[in-house]
Structure formats: C-alpha cells, structure tokens
C-alpha cells in the first residue's frame, strides 16, 4: 500500500473504515455471499455514524440510546425500540435513517455524517436477519481454525499457504511463481538480517539443490547475530527507544543497554511472554539479575522534561498517559490512550480503564521535572576488576582517612569477626522486627533519632552456624535512600563502631554502601562482594574507630553508587557502638611516628612565628588550634591540625601522591562505566481519574491498578491486594488475552509480507481494519501462544511458507484488482528501512563494523544541524574509528533532530509508539545517497576494493562489484552503460588529477595509497551508480 501514514496517529480514526465501506467482497472476511457479518458490515457502520452519541461514552449519550450493545439497541424506549429484531419496518432506527424530515434524520445532517443507500440497506438486512451483535473481532477469544482445503495442493508448504491460497483461488487467481534462489536469498537477508548478502554468504545456498536447502539457509540466518539487530529495530520503534529525553531541552540520556537487551533477546529467542514480563516488571521478579534490571528500563524510555518552569504535577500526568498509550499500543494493539479525557468513542475502554492502567506505573521512581539520574551501572568485566583492585589498593595503603573533615576514623574489615566482648552503648538491629540476642548482646530494634525509611528484607541467611546471627542477618533493613541515626556519645571520646554486614552468597548479587559519620566518609563506597566463601563470620564485620566531636554522632548509611549488578542499597544489618580507651584499636601506620614528630616540630615553628607576628600563611582555624597548648586542644582542634598537616607533611608525601593517583584512576574508571536508567520503585503515587484529562482537577475518584474491565481475566489478584506491574505483565501474556498474540503476529506478518493482515498495526479496535484473513491471523496467534511464544518459530514459519517464497513481480490483472497486494498472490516489494539503507552501503563497501551492542554511534552529520538544540547548546561530534561504521540501528537517536539521513528515509522520531513507518520516495533521499559523506566515503572505499579485488580487466571488476552489491552478474546493457561510465569518467579525471585526488580521499577511512587516484575516482562513479540503484536498497 502507498498509504502515507504518520507514526503519531493515535488520535486519528483509521483508513480501514473507509475501505470497509467500499471494499469489494474480495477483501472482506469469509462469509457466504450476501450474509451479514456484524463485525465486518455493521459495527464499523454504527461505530462511524452513531457511536459518538449512542456509544460507550455515557457522558455523550443522547436520548438514552446505546447502539453499541444489543440490550441497548432493543431497549423499550416507551412503546417503541430503535431495533426490533427481525422487523426492520418496526425499528425506529430504520425509520430515522430513511426519513426525509431533516429534523428526524439520523445521523443528523449537521453532523456531516451521511449513510449511503448501500449502508442503509445493510442495516435493514441486518435487522431483518435478527440484529445479532457479535463481539468485535479482536476481542473474541483467539481460536485455532482448521486450515481450509485448496485446489492447488502443490503450492502448500505449510498451513499458512492454505489460508492465503484459498482466498487467492476464491478471487479467481492463482499464486505467483516461486522466486529464484538469488532473489530469495536477498529477500531473506533483508528481512531477517537487515542487510544485503555478500556473495560468499549465499554461494552455497544458491548452488545447493538438495531438498531442505532453503530451510537450512533460513536456520542459518535465524542463528546469525545480525538477526537480533534487525528485529530490534522494529521493536525499538514500538517502545520509542531514543538517546534523548524528548521534551524541551531534549537532553541526552544513556539507555543503550536496553537496546542491547532487545538485540540479545531476539538472538537468544527469548519467549515473548518472558520478554514482556522482563520489560514491564523485571525489577519485581524474584529472580532478577542484571538482564532483568536492564530490561525494566523499558519503563524509563518515555519522553521526560528538564524544563525549569515545568510543573511536576502536570508532567506526572503526562508521563502516566504516555505509559498507558505505549503499553496498550505495544502489547495490546489498542488505543486505550484515547480514553484519557472521555470514555473511548469506538472501543469499550472507559476513562476508568485508562487511569487504572496508569496506576500500575505509579510506583516507578523518577524525577517529575529534572534530570533522570542514572541508577544502574554496568561495568565491563575489565572495569569491575580495575575498580575492585583500585579500591583494595586504596584501602590497603596506609592512608589515614582524616583528609576530609575534622575527625579521625579508620575502617577495616575485622579479622576477628564480631567482637561481642565490649560494653556496648548501642546494639541495634537495623530494620529488624524482633530483638535478637547474640551472646550477651541484645540487639534492639528501637532507635532514637532515626530518619529515613527502611524496608525489612528477607535475606538469605546462608550457612552460618549461629542461629541468632542468622536471624539478625535475615532481618536486614534496606533502603533506597540514606538512613541516619543519631547516637548519644561524649565529645572527645573514642568509639568503636562495628557494622555487621550481610554478604551475599556467590552469584550476581553484589551490593555496596557508604557510611558517613558526622558527614565524614568512614566507609566509602565499599563494595560488598559476593564471594563463594561468604557467611564466614570474619567477612561480615567492618570496624570503624572514630573520635566523637560532639555530644551526638550522626551515623548515615548511604545507598551504594550502584556498581556492577549491585542493588545499590545499604545492607548493614546491625551495628554496635562502644567507648574505647588506651591504645587505638588499629595499628598505626609505619610512617606515623615520623609524622607525629614532624608535626610537633612544625607546630613549634609556627608558634614561634606567631610570636614574632610573622605571616604564617595559614588559615584562621589552624592558627587558633596551634595557639592552644597540645594537652588542652579539643578533639576538633586536634583534627584540624592533623588534617591540615597530613596534607603537607613530607612524611606522607609519597603516600599522598600514590593514593591521589589511585583515586584519580578510580574516578576515571567509574566515570567510564556505562550507566542505565532502570526501574526502581517507591510508594505508589495516588492515581485519580482526571476529569476531562485535566491534571489540575483533583475531584476525580482514586483508582487502583486494574486492566480494562471488559477483557478476560481482569481480576488480577484474588487476595484483593494492590496489583502491580508484574501482575499486569502476566495478564498481558496470559494465553486468554485476545489482543497480545494477535497484535504481535500481525506485525510480524507485516515484516515479511509488507502489509499487516490487519493493515492498522497499532489499532486492532473498532477504528482499525478488520483483518483481510481473520482465520489466518487467529491461526498464527494460536500457533504463537501454543509454542510458548517462540518468536523464531513464528519467523521461521512465515518465511518458509510458500506464500513468502512467491515472486514479487506483478501483472496487470493483479494490479488492477489488488494494487495493495492484500491477497498476497505475489510477494510485496519495497524500499528497505532507513537503517538498512545505511547498512547496505557500508556492507557493500566493506566498511561495516559488525559488532553487537555498545554505545550509540554518531556518523557524519551536517554541521550546525543541532544548532537549535538548547539547554545546553551542544554540538554533534561525529565518531572516529570503528564507531563511525556501525549499523544504522546504533545511530544516536535524537528525538527532536533525528539524523537527517535517517529522517529522509522515514525513520520515526520515536516520541510515540510507531508501529508502522511511512515509505516515501523523495528527492531528499536521492541527495542523501549522493552527497551524505557516509555514502560518498562508502562509494570511494567500494571503488578501492573493486580495483584491488576485482581482477585486472574492467569487465572482471564490474562483475565483482555487481556480485558484491546485487548478488548477480551485470546484464549486457548494464555492462555497456557502466563500462562507458568508467571510460568517460577516467577521461575527465585524467585531465583533472587534483579533482580526482579529492574524490579518491573522501572520508576518514585510510586511503589505499597504492591505487591511482584517477582510477579510484572513476570507479567511485561506478560504485556510486551501483549503490544508488533502486534495486540495491530494495527488497523484491
């Protein structure tokens, strides 16, 4: 079809309806001729012409008449009914559509709606046949239909072909011939891998005459890692994946790990139900590893704002609506978003359904207005190793941690385990709900001065032998935010604080945390590693020795700056505090004696200077401290001096230098770690029905999470508890959900056949298009569910069908009857998607860097293209090296200023769910392919390779080039044209060597110096001609 459809269309009623009104029997559902099918013939008619006033939207209901249900239609309206089944002449509806009286006529003339005579006849026929109502097709249970019998059995490869062929035969046609091997190979390469094949990739298939060669080839492609990339592109359109936030400043955010998750999922053939659950609720799964956490980033892909003046409340409402539109569009193929301000006009979705759906997402923690801070780090193995090593080096250096503030504290992992022999001032079970006793120590739960929220955990207790400690560890408290407690102490006294920490057993469950005492970091981003030997007592206790500066001591536990697969929550289970005296608990560093001596000397020198009123170049508080005699100094004063002198003493110089370098390296590694926005939860925000969608209006009723009331299995929780995203996700992929499987197989059909069985990929509802092959759609949907949502199985089934293997060449007879190719009596042919256009050029030239995943890439882009981006102003700096030659899929996706070459080939901005892309054919596309430096460079490099690998004669070179780009040899006419082109270009470049040198040096890819520039320039014209052929970037 040529329909130029927008990708942002959720507001619009569909083209489908129009087709229904006019279509010939050819395109309609299979009913006997003349028989009325409510879903096909009547519902769209009523929906279009009547439902606005007599439909599901009760607020707009006129004359108390509903025509969307049979009960409503036959209701006694006081001696008469709109519809009297079997009796059109007694039905008021018929009277009103036929009358000449403008006041009575329905639909009212001023509505602009008008029934034609055929439509009027249909309505009468429907009533005389009994006025049966039937559920809209997409809401009916999915049922497997027995594939029909067909005449031409030899065409049938699998059951899909029976459904397709039956219709073709009914229309009086036959299927098309099977396409040749080369065409099939290219088709499969574009459809499954998203790029054209190189000769060596298809050689064996094209020459393999054995039975099953085609299936073998398909299998090979399904297992190629490029498959995941190709399939991901379509999924990323749906979930509106992008590298910028969308609104206002359209600031950059890092979420590429989600994109890679999608690629991996397709490659690993993750079942669609699991794929769904992980994205919507990966964070709520019991078994949640890095993969599930990253998948949950789906919930963060929406457009957000950082605009200073924006109102948080308004944006909360905008985000909620965005999520409802997306989840219903992506998974249900429904326009639930239309029910934001009023009940849906055409489908049975109510405003309550809309806000109940929004309530599922009310627990997502995010910034309403402002930057969404990365909350997940994904270091590579190398980075993890470096981080751990650097931290250990810092910890093991003899660096004394009094650099930041006024105190003196040191942390170390206790070698003796938990010391139970102290006289504890405090022994606190953090977050525990019962008091625990270990030895003589009672761990209390109550705590004064406690701030912050702790959730009780159910940690694995491991195999520790001590039952009470086990209990203590199992009741650890965790929090997403810092938790503080204020402990009463004596100023100047020394204390030993023991932090009892749960270390998880092996696996990917690392956590880390920091502890501050009076604002000073005593435990700095301490990574609690998962070690195979966990739950040995000695690995559980960290001891801090600290001097109290005041009468209280504020201990703050800080969630980890999540590293690795950490959960990023503090997991300190308990702490003890006791006053200590005598020798410091820790061993003083070796240099300490020298340092103390040096400091005393320095102090006396300064004192002397002060007496002489010389300038000491010291700050006031240091001078004040020195003035006080050593024995009389307060703890704070001692700390001040220690702190200052530690930073300048020669005794510590080497160590300071070493540690500073380590810290710098650590900071650099940490900065380079890839981050992600994942889903974290908080207490669910209240969700109200917003009257008319007005976020200022607080009068609406509060709603709890719920799925649309009219759909099956809508009671998600029998226990009456609040349903969550996990419940929603499970409901979506319940085998009884009629929408999920239909929506997905319909889109998959479109990927391999050019048009969906229902052409509106984003609306299976009343304003969508009834499927051209309803039984086939259902058959596929059942097949999908019954095979455990196996996506590769479906892809395999579709591309191995006989219908798929037909030639795409049309004929006049077929064109006249079926220009849109909805009979599938031939394959479709079309220009490939934006990403593939790029991939083809890079692949053919040999520039493409094939590598799964990674940061988004910045190819060449016209200077100043981003100049209107603001807050902050930014510049596009294209990537150098490998990232310049990545697949189109990885192109940095800026929502407001999408890369112009991608845009020219109809890539969507991804502000909203885009189920279908336009396929335009414009002069701008020609300019991209001819002048975008990416394509200029690719042509140059392709030319070099032709000259280097194509043999010595021009004929041989041309053949080599054709094989590489088009998988075939040139025709005689093509040969003649292109050899003529080489000749004429060579003549011109021979006279203009300087010009040729420019042409032969296009792009940043190293120039093949051994070649003559005029030859490269001339052959660049040929390579460019080949790369600009319609055939090269089209799928036939």
């Amino acid at each position, binding site marked *: 079809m040529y329909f130029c459809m927008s990708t942002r269309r959720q507001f619009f009623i569909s083209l489908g309806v129009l087709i229904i009104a006019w279509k010939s029997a050819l395109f309609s559902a299979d009913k006997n001729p003349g028989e009325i099918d409510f879903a096909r013939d009547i519902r769209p008619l009523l929906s279009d012409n009547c439902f606005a006033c007599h439909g599901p939207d009760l607020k707009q209901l006129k004359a108390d008449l509903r025509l969307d249900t049979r009960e409503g239609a036959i209701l006694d309206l006081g001696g008469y009914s709109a519809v009297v089944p079997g009796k059109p002449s007694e039905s008021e509806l018929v009277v009103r559509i036929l009358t000449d009286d403008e006041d009575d006529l329905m639909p009212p003339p001023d509505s602009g709606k008008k029934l034609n005579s055929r439509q009027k006849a249909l309505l009468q026929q429907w009533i005389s046949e009994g006025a049966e109502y039937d559920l809209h097709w997409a809401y009916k249970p999915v049922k497997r239909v027995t594939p029909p019998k067909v005449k031409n059995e030899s065409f049938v490869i699998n059951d899909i072909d029976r459904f397709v062929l039956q219709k073709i035969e009914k229309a009086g046609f036959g299927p098309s011939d099977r396409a040749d091997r080369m065409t099939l190979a290219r088709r499969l390469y574009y459809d499954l891998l998203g790029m054209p094949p190189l000769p060596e990739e298809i050689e064996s298939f094209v020459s393999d005459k054995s039975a099953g060669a085609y299936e073998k080839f398909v299998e090979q492609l399904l297992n190629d890692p490029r498959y995941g990339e190709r399939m991901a592109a379509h999924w990323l359109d749906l979930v509106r994946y992008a590298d910028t936030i969308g609104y206002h400043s359209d600031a950059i955010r890092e979420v590429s790990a989600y994109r890679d998750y999608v690629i991996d999922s397709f490659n690993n053939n993750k079942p669609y139900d699991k794929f769904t659950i992980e994205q919507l609720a990966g964070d709520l799964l019991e078994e949640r590893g890095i993969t599930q956490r990253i998948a949950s980033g789906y919930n963060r892909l929406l457009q957000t704002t950082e605009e200073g003046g924006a109102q948080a409340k308004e944006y909360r409402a905008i985000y909620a609506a965005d999520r409802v539109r997306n989840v219903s569009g992506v998974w249900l193929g429904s326009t639930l978003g239309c029910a934001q301000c009023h009940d849906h006009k055409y489908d049975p979705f109510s405003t309550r359904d809309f806000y109940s759906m929004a309530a599922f997402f009310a627990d997502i923690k995010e910034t309403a207005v402002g930057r969404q801070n990365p909350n997940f780090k994904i270091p590579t193995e190398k980075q993890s190793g470096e981080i751990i090593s650097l931290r250990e080096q810092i910890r093991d250096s003899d660096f004394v941690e009094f650099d930041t503030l006024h105190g003196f504290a040191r942390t170390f992992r206790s070698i003796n385990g938990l010391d139970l022999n102290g006289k504890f001032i405090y022994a606190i079970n953090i977050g525990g709900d019962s008091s625990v006793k270990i030895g003589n120590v009672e761990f209390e739960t109550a705590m004064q001065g406690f701030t912050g929220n702790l959730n009780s955990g159910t940690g694995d207790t491991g195999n520790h032998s001590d039952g009470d400690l086990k209990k203590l560890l199992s009741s650890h408290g965790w929090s997403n935010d810092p938790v503080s407690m204020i402990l009463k102490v004596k100023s100047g006294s020394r204390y030993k604080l023991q932090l009892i920490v749960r270390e998880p057993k092996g696996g990917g469950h690392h956590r880390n945390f920091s502890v501050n005492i009076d604002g000073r970091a005593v435990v700095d981003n301490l990574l609690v590693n998962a070690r195979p030997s966990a739950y040995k007592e000695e690995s559980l206790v960290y001891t801090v020795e600290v001097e109290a500066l005041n009468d209280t001591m504020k201990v703050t536990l800080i969630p980890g700056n999540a590293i690795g697969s950490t959960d990023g929550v503090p997991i300190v289970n308990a702490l003890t505090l006791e006053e200590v005296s005598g020798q410091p608990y820790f061993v003083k560093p070796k240099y300490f004696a020298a340092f103390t001596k040096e400091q005393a000397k320095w102090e006396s020198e300064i004192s002397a200077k002060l007496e002489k009123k010389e300038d000491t170049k010291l700050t006031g508080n240091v001078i004040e401290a020195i003035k006080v005699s050593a024995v009389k100094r307060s703890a704070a004063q001692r700390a001040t001096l220690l702190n200052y002198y530690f930073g300048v003493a020669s005794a510590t110089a080497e160590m300071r230098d070493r540690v500073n370098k380590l810290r710098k390296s650590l900071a650099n590694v940490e900065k380079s770690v890839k981050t992600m926005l994942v889903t974290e939860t908080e207490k669910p925000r209240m969700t109200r029905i917003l009257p008319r969608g007005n976020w200022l209006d607080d009068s609406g009723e509060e709603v709890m999470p719920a799925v649309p009331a009219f759909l099956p299995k809508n009671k998600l929780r029998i226990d009456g508890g609040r349903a969550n995203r996990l419940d929603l996700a499970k409901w979506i992929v319940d085998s009884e959900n009629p929408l999920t499987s239909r929506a997905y197989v319909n889109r998959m059909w479109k990927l391999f056949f050019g048009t969906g069985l229902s052409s509106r990929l984003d609306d299976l509802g009343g304003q969508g298009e009834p499927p051209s092959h309803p039984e086939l759609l259902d058959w596929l949907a059942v097949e999908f569910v019954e095979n455990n949502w196996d996506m590769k199985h479906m892809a395999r089934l579709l591309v191995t069908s006989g219908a798929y293997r037909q030639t795409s060449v049309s004929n006049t007879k077929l064109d006249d009857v079926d*220009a849109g190719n909805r009979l599938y009596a031939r394959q479709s042919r079309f220009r490939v998607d934006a990403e593939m256009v790029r991939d083809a050029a890079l692949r053919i030239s040999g520039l493409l860097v094939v590598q799964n995943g990674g940061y988004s890439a910045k190819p060449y882009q016209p200077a100043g293209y981003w100049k209107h981006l603001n807050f902050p102003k930014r510049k596009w700096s294209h990537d150098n090296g490998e990232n310049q030659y990545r697949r189109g899929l990885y192109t940095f996706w800026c929502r407001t200023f999408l890369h112009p070459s991608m845009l020219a080939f109809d890539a969507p901005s991804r502000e909203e769910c885009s189920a279908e892309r336009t396929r335009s054919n414009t*002069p701008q596309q020609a300019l991209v392919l001819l002048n975008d430096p990416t394509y200029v460079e690719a042509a140059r490099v392709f030319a070099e390779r032709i000259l280097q690998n194509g043999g010595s004669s021009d004929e041989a070179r041309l053949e080599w080039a054709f094989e590489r780009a088009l998988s075939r040899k040139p025709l005689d006419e093509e040969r003649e044209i292109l050899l003529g082109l080489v000749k004429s270009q060579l003549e011109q470049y021979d006279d203009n060597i300087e010009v040729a040198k420019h042409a032969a040096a296009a792009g940043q890819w190293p120039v093949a110096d051994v070649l003559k520039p005029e030859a490269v320039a001339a052959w660049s014209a040929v390579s460019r001609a080949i790369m600009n052929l319609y055939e090269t970037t089209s799928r036939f």
Partner: protein
Amino acid sequence: MSSSWNILNPNSPTPVRERQLAINRRHFFDRSATGIGVAALSSLLGRDGLSAVAQPSSDLKGLPGLPHFPPKAKRIIYLFQNGAPTHIDLYDYKEQLPKVHGKPVPEEYFRGKRFSTMTGNPAGKLMLQPVEPFKQHGQSGAWVSNFLPHIAKSADDICFIKSMNSDAVNHAPAISFLLSGAQIPGRPTMGAWLNYGLGNPSQDLPGFVAMTSVSKGTSCGQIFYDFYWGSGFLPTRFQGSKFRGSRDPVLYLKNPAGMNPGLRRGLLDDLAELNELKFKETGDPEIRTRIAQYEMAYKMQTSVPELTDLSDEPDHVLDLYGPQVREPGTFAYNCLMSRRLAERGVRFVQCMHAGWDQHNSLTTELYTQCKDTDQPSAGLLKDLKMRGMLDDTLVIWGGEFGRTPFIQGDIKNRPRWGRDHHPYAFTIWMAGGGVKPGMSWGASDDLGFNAAVDPVHVHDLQATILKLMGIDHEQLTYRFQGRYHRLTDVHGKVVQGVIS
C-alpha cells in the same frame, strides 16, 4: 494486454495504466533496440532529455484532457493557519455579540451538535464578545479586527468566505479533511492531486512544497504530520517536499569534493538508464518515482541555493513582509519563500503556521499570533500584485475550523479567556487567481454560530479551488482498491459566486 483496460476512464490512470504508459515510452526509447547510445540519447533529447525519459509525461504536463476549463489560477499559495483562528475575533463581525456577552448560549444554536471533548455539552456556557474592536475597511467596507491592520488594508483585494463549515472537531482530522477531503490520514492532499492532474510547470523545483512555522512563545503549537502533504495512494512522487525552516531548506545539496556537475550529470544519466532496466523487468512504479526524484534532486542542487539567496531582494520588498522576514523559519520568511517558489512555477505551496489554538489565551497570545502573521500575509498579496502575479496566483488564508462564540474558561478571569474548536461556521479568505476581490461570500447567523447564508462546506471549497485551477472536481479521479477516489469524495459544489 488485458481487456480490463477498456473499462478505465482514460483520464484516470491506475497503477496499471501508469505501467502501460511507461512501457510504451520505453519501447520508444529502447536503446538496445534502436542502437542509440547514451550520449546520443542525451543530445537527442536536449537539456531535458533525461527527464523526458525519467518522468512520465503526466508529471510535466499533467493528465491528458486537463485542464478541463481555461484555468483562472496557475498556482496556489495556501497560507494554512493550523490550530483554527477565531473567526469571531478576527473577521466575522457580529453586532449582536457584545449585547449577549456573559449570557448563556441559546440552546437552539447548539442542539444536536458535537463539540470537542473540552466543551462537551455547551449548555450554560456564556457568550463572549470579541476581545478586540473591529473597523470597516476599503471600498468594500469589510469588517476586520484591529488585530490585523495590514490584512485590513488589503481588504479590497480579498474575498472573505464567512460561511465555511467542516465535519471535524479536532485539529489533525480537520486539517486532513481540508487538505485531503478525508479526516483519516492516507488520502492524497490537494497539492498532490493538482500536480498529478496538471503536472509540474516548474522545471527545477518540486511541484508541491510544504513549509512550516510556529509563532514564538505560543503555548499550543500543533504537530505537523507528514500526511498533511502526503500523496496517499497516488504515486509517491506527488507528495509534497518538506522544506526545512532554515537557510538550508534542503540538506546535502552540495556535491562532494571531486565531483563537478558534469561528472554528476554523466553519472545520473547512466543511473536513470540502469533503473529503467530494472523497471522493465519488474514494472514496479516506485522505480519510476525514484528516477524522477533523482532528476529533481539534481535540479534542486542549483535551484534551491538560488531560491534561498535573498541578495536580489531589495529592502523595500523585504519590508513588505515585516521584520521577521530576515529570519529563516518564521512565517514571514516562508511567505517570501512562497512568492519565490511561485515565481519559479511551483504549482502548490503549502505554508503552514501553527499556534492559533487559543483555548485560554485570547487576550494574551492571539495578539502575538496576529502580529506574526498579519503583515507577512498582506505583504505577500502586495508583493504578488506588484509583480502582476496575483492575477494567476490563488492565495488562500485560513485554518481547519473556527472557534466557539461562547467562552472556554471563566468569564471573570479575562487573562485566561479562550474559545474552543468550532466547525459550524468559520471564515477563510482567498485572493487573486480568479477570485472576486473586495467581497464577502455567505454569512453566519447573528451569533457567528452556524453558517446561515450560502454555506460553504469544506468539499465545496475544494471543488471551487479545483475549478479555479481549471479542473472539474468530479473528473479528477484515481482508481484505488476497486473505487474511483477524488479530492471531494462524493460531495462538493463549486461556489460560482466567488469566481470572477
């Protein structure tokens, strides 16, 4: 050939006919059959040789038999005002309104009518007088709001249609309705139909150009969907080319280093030949479009930089359009571009400006909106007139519907006064191109609520526009999926009264 040919309307090519025409042409130019070489072919065909091969004749000359009548207008500049300007406050002066200000809207005016969901049921809504006084202007005595002083001065060149009405109550469906005749996206728009029917008289620019702008500081800019200038089921070469709002309206115009126009020309000639070969094999009409678009792209490499080079525009001309004309991407700049495009023969310029959706900003943003559009619109008329181009250039100014004569918002809170969507009566104006100047056609009722005298429905406007271009709207059709489609669907009556 199939016998199904005979049943086709000769004026109504289908994909089949397209293909047949192409095959005939190909036989004529078949190189291998005639033995004419590429160079010879190019010289044989002269400067436009390639385009003759590349483009179906209909692209250049239009369909055979068209125009149906001698055209009054050769080209159109549609100054489309997205968001729906308020007819009540700008053009449709009603003596009665101040008298009923603050009173509930009488039921007989709205009974049985559908409003946007923001209004729902208008019962009890209060009437709202215009926010700015009107004056009569020119010999014709047209009433125009003081917000539009420049358009007011051009009143004697303008034909106001005050009885417009539409079916749609929301923006995108209504805009789609006005431009394509259907509320749903996916039908060919006016510019596509005209280029399909009449061809593209511009040698080196697309026959259908779309430009967009938004007033600065407007709080409700609408999105510009690409189907507003789509070609629907017509071949994609008829879709509007969207020019970007910057000094580089089209990117990637410059040839890369080491490529001069001569070399490029040679390459493109061969490329077209090669693509023709594939077309011969497959009959895929998209290949024909591709060939035509490459040719157009080549021409645009010269024509677009020349188009946007304003150094030949004297200050007194630029000043006609107001101060923003020097700022690419503004409505004023686009108006000037529209004239330059029209001068170069472009058949249909669709200059869309968003920001007219004053739901709660009548007393604040409407003024800015008028200021940004008033002088440029009037400036364009003056400029065209000065050059003698107004006679055969039809300028259309208007939005997708009007605004409610009653208030949206709280009548006590003047700074937040607004009006909701209103399709039952609104005003658009046309000038030049065979339209009677200095007149008003039709009228709304005493409250500006419903089209009362000589109503002009959207399909009637479309029929009239086609008539001015020399086309019988019932005869310009395209067969798709078993049905002949046309811009006016199955409706539309030409408003003879506005045609001079």
